[in-house]
């Protein structure tokens, strides 16, 4: 996550033509990318910054860091939620200004938890579970390309993700263990949320956007099994949290 992009930033207002790029929605995008993209979209909506969503088959390769999503604002290109939050902050829009230092540290910790647990679990299920990889991930990932390039790119991505899983120590885990990890993560989130509307009481922050992005996508994406969604559904306050954010910020969104 490079911050070098913002060093020479001039304070220009948010342009109308700001665009967010992600892979093709219908046929190509995978669970993890969809979750990340939705998190960024939720965050920008919470900030009141309009952005157009454009789908491109080569969005992953267009991104400067190789990760989805990225936004094109003026002549700046910024990818991933962390740098985008910094970017909007430099432009004067921030959701976490009202937090004190302890709360900010807590927020960062929970965001790390979501990234290390939920996002990694999503990647594991997509690429390390053979059934999901063969039925869903590889066909979808390679859908814009013709044979034999489709096979080459799909397997290349699979090997890359599996190597990464080994590097973070998830290589030896079973699917059950992964589901259990997700469960524990949701439990922590649910406890922190309690009965509040948002994680830090009245106002949504980037943590809310991130959690919403992941949970909502998991709930609404069809996988080979519904176990993952079931684990989340067992926490009712998380469900109502997702519904609340969807209704508040996305009700004009056509599905």
């Amino acid at each position: 996550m490079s911050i070098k992009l913002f060093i020479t930033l001039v304070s220009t207002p948010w342009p109308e033509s700001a665009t967010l790029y992600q892979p093709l929605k219908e046929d190509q995008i995978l669970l993890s990318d969809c979750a990340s993209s939705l998190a960024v979209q939720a965050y920008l909506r919470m900030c009141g910054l309009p952005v157009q969503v454009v789908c491109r088959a080569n969005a992953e390769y267009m991104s400067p860091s190789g990760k989805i999503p990225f936004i094109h604002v003026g002549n700046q290109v910024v990818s991933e939620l962390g740098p985008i939050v910094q970017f909007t902050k430099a432009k004067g829009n921030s959701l976490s200004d009202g937090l004190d230092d302890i709360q900010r540290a807590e927020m960062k910790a929970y965001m790390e938890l979501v990234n290390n647990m939920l996002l990694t679990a999503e990647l594991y299920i997509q690429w390390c579970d053979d059934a999901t990889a063969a039925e869903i991930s590889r066909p979808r990932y390679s859908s814009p390309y013709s044979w034999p390039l489709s096979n080459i790119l799909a397997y290349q991505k699979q090997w890359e993700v599996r190597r990464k899983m080994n590097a973070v120590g998830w290589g030896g885990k079973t699917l059950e263990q992964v589901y259990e990890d997700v469960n524990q993560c949701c439990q922590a989130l649910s406890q922190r949320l309690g009965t509040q509307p948002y994680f830090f009481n009245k106002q949504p922050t980037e943590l809310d956007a991130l959690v919403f992005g992941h949970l909502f996508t998991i709930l609404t994406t069809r996988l080979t099994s519904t176990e993952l969604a079931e684990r989340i559904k067992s926490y009712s306050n998380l469900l109502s949290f997702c519904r609340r954010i969807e209704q508040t910020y996305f009700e004009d969104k056509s599905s």
Partner: protein
Amino acid sequence: MVWCSFGTMNCIINLDPLPMRGPELGVQPDDIEAPDIEHEPKQEVLENKNVVVQRVHIDGLGRTKDDVLTYEIAEVFQAKNLIDVMRRSHEARQKLLRLGIFRKVEVVIDTSRGEHALPNGLDVTFEVTELRRMTGSYNTMVGNNEGSMVLGLKLPNVLGRAEKMTFQFSYGTKETSYGLSFFKPQPGNFERNISLNVYKVTGQFPWSSLRETDRGVSGELSFPVWKTNQTLKWEGVWRELGCLARTASFAVREESGHSLKSSLSHSMVIDTRNSSILPRKGALMKIHQELAGYTGGDASFLKEDFEIQLNKTLFWDSVLSASLWGGLLLPIGDKPTNIADRFYLGGPTSIRGFSMYSMGPQSEGDYLGGEGYWAGGLHLYTPLPFRPGKGGFGDLFRTHFFLNAGNLCNLNYGEGPQAHLKKLAECIRWSYGVGVVLRLGNIARLELNYCIPMGVQSGDRICDGFQFGAGIRFL
């Protein structure tokens, strides 16, 4: 040089250049035997004596198979007199050398011996030395912020019928590339050949802030038809494009990613020039077309380009040369053209006075290439003033006066050809100047020119004043 022996007299005949009138007889001191009285009359009738070539054979073959060579030496049998024998032997020797499998070929013409020997029979023997099975080369190259190690392996005559396999591997600090190629000529018809290649090449194009990695296979079939050389080729390439720097324009960023091109192409070449670098006479016409998309892959287009060059020697050892290039890229279907397929123009090898490929459609300083172009050049090559180093080093240099013009743009295919011609004819860039050309072997040339670019459009990058160029193909 040829050894001949007639009767008891040995003589040396020089075949390069061909003698105009009869052989010149020289004598080796250690081979003189007692002179024969018959020597003189034989000497006089050597030219006109009818001979029959009874045997032609090749000595020194190792792994080369015979059947390939019989075609090359077959003509020698038809010689009717001694001069003819020598001429045909010389031609056969050239044919054997062009196969690329022998290091040395020597011809020995002798009278026939043995039971079936005719009184006017001749035996022609080609003494050959085959090339080694494998030759390797190792170079290191240092270029723009990059060092690399290049390893080359060449296996001539792999299976005995003049097949050639080459392998090149380049390992650099930034990029790695390799290429493997297999070449097989048709026995008896060397100009008809097949070539298969597998390669990975990487290129960096700073004028477009683009990095391209191509991994591909290709198969090529070449054959001569009348005076032309035709080539049919199928190529499958996996292309990976990326931005060269963070500051790349968004238009180039949008082209990043992977694509697969599977294309059939045909090219026709007629080349009557006496040399490919600084020719003095002759003409070149090259027409090339490529159709992609009908054999698979993502890219779908029809690409045409041509190259014409005419040369004429004028008074006082000067040469007038005119050349014309042009090309057109037609996308098929609704996908727009890919930056890797478009044409680029400008630079010391095309329109001098402009920076390398820095002409035409661009976005934020990155040149995106165009779908149609034409370029023309008019040159007058003269020897260096006062001809320093004449007869030696100085002959490699020429002065040239040039006039280049051209245009590169995108075409809107909704409009007709009239609109296209009009578009290519407006906003013409052109330049003129003078410079010095150095010829490097028969492959490349170096140029140092003083250029004055004109007709510069906004967005073009120029290089007026002195410009240095090195390359193989110049406008």
